[in-house]
């Protein structure tokens, strides 16, 4: 007799669940966290109904734990993301992301005359406002605001 197939998408034993990602930012989050290279099991879900976000996405990562400095990078595209740290099927810690003081890579300078848009250079910004994200380019000193923020 054939066993009924069931996908194990529900709970993870140990790892991190990233919830409240805006649905359209899912693939940016995957890119920023470099999930492509992770060998452990990862589950993505997109376009879940969310009262807060309309459509949200969720990522469950087995055996992955992030340093704040790394996870905070996603704050640019998922400012309301919430993290559940799972140990032995239990949520042992909840975290919210915070926009870091400095952004290296990830974002594009909105100034077309900036050297970073004309030569292969890793972008670098000082965050001058966290609420309405505003980034000051380390090179051209121009400010890129939330409205013009493009993720590389």
């Amino acid at each position, binding site marked *: 007799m054939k066993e009924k197939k069931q996908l194990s998408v529900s709970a993870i034993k140990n790892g991190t669940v990233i919830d409240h990602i805006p649905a359209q930012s899912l693939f940016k989050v995957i890119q920023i966290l470099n999930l492509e290279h992770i060998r452990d099991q990862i589950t993505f879900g997109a376009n879940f109904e969310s009262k807060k976000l309309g459509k949200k996405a969720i990522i469950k990562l087995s055996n992955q734990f992030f340093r704040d400095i790394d996870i905070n990078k996603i704050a640019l595209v998922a400012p309301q993301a919430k993290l559940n740290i799972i140990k032995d099927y239990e949520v042992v810690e909840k975290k919210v992301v915070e926009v870091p003081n400095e952004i290296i890579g990830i974002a594009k300078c909105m100034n077309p*005359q*900036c050297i970073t848009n004309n030569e292969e*250079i890793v972008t670098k910004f000082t965050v001058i406002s966290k609420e309405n994200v505003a980034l000051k380019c*380390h090179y*051209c000193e121009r400010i890129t605001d939330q409205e013009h923020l493009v993720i590389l």
Partner: protein
Amino acid sequence: MKDKSLVSINDYNKEEILKILELAAEFEKNPSQNILKGKVIATLFFEPSTRTRLSFESAINRLGGRVVGFIDSSSSSVTKGETLKDTIKTVSNYCDLIIMRHPLEGSAKYASEVATVPVINAGDGANQHPTQTLLDLYSIIKTQGTLDDLNIFLVGDLKYGRTVHSLLMAMSHFTTIFNFISPEELKMPDEYKLFLENLGLKYYEHTDFTEIISRADIVYMTRVQQERFSDPMEYEKVKNIYVLRNHMIRNTKPNMRILHPLPRVNEIHPDVDESEKAYYFQQALNGVFTRQAIISSILGLK
């Protein structure tokens, strides 16, 4: 300041600025010395700027240094598609100091990070031109005897004008009163006003200055640059808005001086040129002494 690149006016603190101004005064007394003998300085002009280049090269030549470089990117390997990084890395091998002008903003900062010798920014697009600011300060201290308690009028394009932004940042080290005179379209950006407010410095905004010019110690005129306007009609509306004429400066303070980064178009009428208050050509000469001071300080010779 030895071995430290000068990319932005913010790279120097108040003491460092004053040190450069002191050195500039020394060089003015004795502008031809042989202290750069044996030094090779590269002047890399990725876009032409004859005035700035000649000022630097004059400063270097008077001190006995040698210059290598190019005067626009068509005569360099840039036309072959070489990256800025590769150009800077290569040229670093040939010289003790790089002076560069580049049309892209942030290029000088980037060059200073990849170069193995110090870099002086001679203008990176609309961003920074710190040696201009230092020569402006030298012109102010030379004509006023001080940098404290001066009433400075900044006139013209205050929105895009990099020289006025850098001058504002530099003068904010001192107890300056600022008067901003510009059309509505070209007002001083909020971030600079906020910066002054946080320091407790006073500023006033006007659209006309004929009534108040008698209060000025320094009138800093700027050109409204056509290339900043996407709409030619907008440019036509503001291009002739501030034209300084000799009769307007009759009742000004005796110590008042008119500065301009040059080139001017029509914002200062030629009838002002003969006035003792017209200082813009001496200001250009001060650029040579100021650049001598900056170069010799970075090379650790002074």
